[in-house]
């Protein structure tokens, strides 16, 4: 039995999508079952941490989403876990207890989206300066611009 099948058996209520080519399995997990689900996925064979990132859907409820990518080496399979995070209370439990590799990625998501990972050992900004204001990858954070004054082009002689 593959890792995905045993995981689907353990969570009969959960929606698994199978999209695209090569098959990508996507699990939509509620926030309260998130930590438990990731631990079970690791036990079922998805024991390679690949990626964690935030997405801001702005007008959707819940507004944010945290996307975790896991990998199983044998047999080769990918699992993508999508968790919704509410805008008024953007808190998720940290994955660092299960996968220490999530450490930097959660700091990045905190830095760029302002999603708080409760229990993280070092939740500080990672790519931006410590005194930066705002979370730039949020959709309501504008790109901004610096006014540039061009000199008049020299007139033809």
């Amino acid at each position, binding site marked *: 039995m593959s890792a995905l099948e045993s995981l689907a058996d353990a969570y009969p209520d959960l929606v698994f999508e199978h999209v695209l080519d090569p098959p990508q399995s996507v699990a939509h997990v509620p926030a309260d079952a998130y930590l438990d689900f990731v631990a079970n996925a690791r036990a079922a064979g998805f024991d390679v*941490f690949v990626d964690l990132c935030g997405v801001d859907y702005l007008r959707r409820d819940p507004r944010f989403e945290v996307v975790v990518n896991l990998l199983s080496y044998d047999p080769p399979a990918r699992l993508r876990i999508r968790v919704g995070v509410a805008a008024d209370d953007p808190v998720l439990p940290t994955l660092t207890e299960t996968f220490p*590799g999530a450490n930097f990625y959660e700091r990045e998501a905190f830095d760029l989206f302002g999603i708080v990972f409760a229990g993280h*050992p*070092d939740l500080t*900004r990672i790519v*931006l300066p410590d005194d930066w204001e705002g979370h730039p*990858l949020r959709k309501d954070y504008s790109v901004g611009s610096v006014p540039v004054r061009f000199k008049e082009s020299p007139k033809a002689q």
Partner: protein
Amino acid sequence: MSDTPNVVTGDFEAPTTEPPSQPETADSAAAEARREIHDMWVAGTEEPAWMRSYTNEGAQEMLEAESDPALEIHRGTTVTDDFIVEEPADDDELQILNMGPQHPSTHGVLRLHLELDGETIRRVKPIIGYLHTGMEKTAETLTYMQGSTNVTRMDYLSPFHMELAFSLAVESLLGAEIPERGQAIRVLLTELNRVSSHLVWAATQGTDLGAVSMMIYGFRDREYILQFFEKVTGLRMNHNFIRPGGVAADLPDGWEEDVDEIIEKVSRGVSEYEELFNGNPIFRDRTIGVGVITPEECKALGVSGPIARASGIKWDLRKAFPYSGIDKYEFEVPTGKHGDVWDRYLVRIEEVKQSLGIVRQVLETMPAGDYRTLDRKVTPPPRKRIDESMEALIHHFKLFTSGFKVPAGETYQAVESPRGELGMYIVSDGRERPWRMHARTPSFNHVQALPTMMTDSLVADIVATIASCDPVLGDVDR
């Protein structure tokens, strides 16, 4: 872990004493003058005396890296490093040293916050972000047509792999089919790019360990490949050549001879490197048993590519999830046993040979045909058609002003870059610009794994370990 005294981490004791009160001075005039100067210059800026004994640097503060319970679970085995020093250190003897971001051996602007006990590293904290340019935010303002100019600048040593990952992600949302010749050109360029990237690694690894002549050899051989890239794409780096829908142009006339010459020259160069390194006692002493990482730690930390393979994980995305028709070509996945710097050297040298083998196979079996998809909604029409067809003109205008629309959805596509798994996660809302683009870059994980490789080794091993990870800071910070 818990019953032994935690001397390695050197915890600071919580402050128990009150700030000492200032002694009264007899000379009140002098005290008044001092007070005025104080009020003018330093009032409000000083910190209490008890705080001066330690720093609070926010993101730059040290952590108890080695007391990570999750790593202990994953580790399962003890790390066999020759240079582990068992004796505990006094707190007084610990010393904080900042290495980087301008240190030449950090391969860019990586900064390491080191806590040293003499020559032994007790704790390491990598500090990144000095090269952050907000490329993921920029990607949201660029159309899919323009996107590949953005991503190609992330990992500047393997730009073709960045472009390929981005293009694969966009194509998987579009459902576009790439003609065989386009796929073969992609394989040719990415495998040559893997060779050129590994040559830079060989050059810097050699230089960092004292073999300065290796710097010259590595960059000399890389130059042959970059000249070929310039001939094909017009640029030595940041090509923007692999685009959604195929590649930008066909290969130039005479490319077969050029590739043949590259294979011959680089193969000769690689055998020179082996001659230089394999029996070299200095190189062996400085790499064998240094910077060890176990397979369990690789999995837990998301370490991939040559580093994971050197630890004994036989995993290559080209074999597991083949892309661009790479499964048509025969190649081996080299693995190591010990997960140290020496094994990473062996794995990378073997990968160069295997990649040259793939390039040779592409050279012999290059199919004829189109080099990009003929879907006019994705690829611009040929220049000649614009003069004679109104529809072609409209397509051309629409593509270059507003780009093409991509069906709503989300996808994650990964390629095996020279450094490891390089993934692109794209969320599309059905418009011309990605709603969200996230690059999962291998160097980010490898920099994160540096403390695991370095802790309790010696200062001189830092440069060997960083060089063997081959981090590209543009890839880390994005």
